[in-house]
């Protein structure tokens, strides 16, 4: 049985590379440079190991509105809906999830100019 392991993505993240955070903030949907691609691959593959589940978006209005949620790793358990986190664009949602993941993986809070919502 061939298995994929969430811990397999191990590109080392340098918490000082705020340039990569800025690059993502400029274009959450890409295209992205090589190093940002590697950073995103690690974050997306690992699936939020510090959380009770992977961050996901729930479509509340097709093409218009999305809600943040956490998808449990165990099938059958309900997806946690985070009703206070609602987005009106995918880019805005990507940015919010990126910030949560960056702070979780680096253990550092982003500086004020990088922690705001996407304009």
């Amino acid at each position, binding site marked *: 049985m061939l298995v994929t392991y969430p811990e397999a993505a191990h590109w080392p993240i340098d918490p000082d590379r705020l340039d990569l955070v800025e690059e993502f903030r400029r274009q959450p949907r890409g295209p992205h440079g090589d190093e940002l691609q590697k950073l995103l691959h690690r974050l997306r593959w690992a699936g939020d190991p510090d959380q009770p589940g992977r961050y996901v978006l729930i479509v509340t209005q097709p093409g218009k509105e999305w809600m943040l949620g956490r998808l449990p790793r165990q*099938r059958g358990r309900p997806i946690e809906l985070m009703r206070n986190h609602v987005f009106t664009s995918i880019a805005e949602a990507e940015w919010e999830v990126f910030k949560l993941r960056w702070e979780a993986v680096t253990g550092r809070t982003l500086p004020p100019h990088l922690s705001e919502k996407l304009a």
Partner: protein
Amino acid sequence: MTDTTSVLGYAWPMVVSPGEEVAFHLSSPSVSKADAVLVRVRCGDPDPAGPGIRVQEMAAPFERTVSLVHQPIRPGSCAIVADTPALTSFQSFTIGTFVWPTMPGDRAQTILSRWRADVQEGWRLGLDADGHLEFVVAAGGRTWRVATGAALLSREWVLAGASWDAEAGRLAVMVRSVDPQGGRDRSERVEADGPTALEWPAAVPLVIAAHAGDARGELFDGFYDGKIDRPRLHASVQAIDGLYRLCESVNFPMADARLIAAWDFSRGMAGESVTDLSAHHLHGRLRQMPTRGMTGANWDGSTDRWTDCPEQYGAIHFHSDDMADAEWEPTVRFTVPAEWRSGFYALRLRADAGDEPVESFVAFFVRAELGKPRSRLAFVASTGTFLAYANSALRLDQVHAEAMLEGVLTLSRDDVYIQEHREVGLSTYDTHADGSGWSISSARRPILNMRPRGNVFNYGNDTHFIDWLEETGQDYDVITDDDIHRHGVQVLAPYTCVVTGSHPEYISREVWDAFDAYQRGGGRHMYLGGNGFYWRIAYHPTVPHTIEMRRGMTGLRTWEGEAGETALAFTGEPSSTWRSNGRPPQRLVGVGFDGQVFTHSSPYRWLDGAKDPALSWLTEGIDLAAPLGDFGLRGNGAAGVEIDRVDWSLGSPPGTVWLATADRLGYGGTPAPEEIRTLHRGVMGDQNAQVRADLVYFPTANGGAVFSTGSIAWVCALSHAGYENNVSQLTGNVLKRFLDPTPL
């Protein structure tokens, strides 16, 4: 947020002819009444950037308000042997079988039983909650139990057995590991006190891989995950060596009255019954279609097909979540009027139950009746593909999904439901709870992603082509994979042109042969999708709308089958990709799957082949200097998602006109595994021109022709700018010429 799941249902049959009856099997745990309206589906994609949901209400004779009840689904496969005097004709006995458990320690699981859970009587051999082999006998309010000291290992064969010696008043449980090396040995024998006489419960079936919930033989529990190979029941006390001989034997030339049963799961592989080789003929029936054609403990690698050596394929892989039939009672019956056009239809159910409006669709298809075409054009409903993807939980369960899709997962209300309600049964993209691949898919259950408002991949995308046909005023018939499989080329032959949609991926040999014969006979085939004609599947020989596939050892697979298990149980044919069966899609439609791109879709650029004046009918009204399809609902381009390319070495016909290509896909262009022979860097789309979508045309025999776009995103670009765009123009040009019977 629209509630799409409080009411669910399925139509049976899934495909009907005008004049035939379809029954809607509906259920709701929370809504007692719903407004039920039949609709003809034009577009099933709610995306506000496109046409949106577009359906036409149809008149129907039944009462619009339907009453609903909750109808539970009971997943879990097992074999059931109806009660018979032979099962209570003995006292002392031995039972045993080879087992390959896949979830020992997950919960208590029953392997072999004649047990009533409601009164806790009878006997059962199984795994306890910690994975130890346990044997329990009970009657008259007393229970005796014996269990091994060690838990069984996952995915390791052992001979597992138990005996009751009535004369000695002893129970024994015994294990012999097939491979006792390297820490794998779980061989042991444990004895305990047992009864000296028992009165067996009456009217209880013998069940393999579960136990009976009660005496009615309808409810089952204690489902086991894993393989069971050659179970035996002998009315004597045997030690492990005797049991081993019994289980190793695959034929019994000397009738032995004490051999109560010896099941051989390699017989009648495609069927739903299991055969007993003993003189008692204790044949059983299977529920919820477990996976057959599985390697047994005696498989030696000398073949990978059960047809070559059935005696090495005496195992069935049972799953506690197998689900082939929801067994719901019908709620509404409807006879399709003879005058109805063929097409995509659905029963729309609306209710105001709580905070959110309920709107849930139950899809069905009305086929153009065989031999009675009403148009020169037929659109193929890719029902094989719809079934293969039915209730896919890929994005919920698989680690790679978010990385593959290049962004945070966006889940629908249906996905939220499936995460919690696995009892609806998953798709062939998914794994069972035990990690093994899901290889069978049926339509006798709600299919949440084959309906309007469902996840758009496949069904929803294909309705964009229907929407375009309606918009352009083009008449058409709808035919389905199921019909082509059953009746072959005669389903296609009446049409001057046949269109396959965004993703005709799952193809039986019968369907492939029908398209081949159609094209050879002068038919015109427009393949407007990507990753088409890719996997080889089989349809169940007797149960309608039920497919089987095996992922095999190559191709883009979300799970990998076990070695030796790539042949289809339904037919004995090899499965896997058509490319590995000697039929690369390039040979049939000019292009074949080469990669995926989810970062963004791209336009094609025209190649010299399109500039041939003889093809002016194809390019009329189109600026060949402008990009083709730099727009669309899937990634803002017509070339993307899953894509196909020309390859002369893989069989693209020499007469292929390579019209256009999208070969600058960037780093998001990822090649299919079978495109890479060795490992090296530089394989992604930013460096590799083999990752691309190609647009081709070629003439076939007898004035026929093929036009292929090699991209799933194509049909989702048709409606751009009020349908006035070069993707729409080109599709229309080709369709117009393909409907002209003048030979090409």
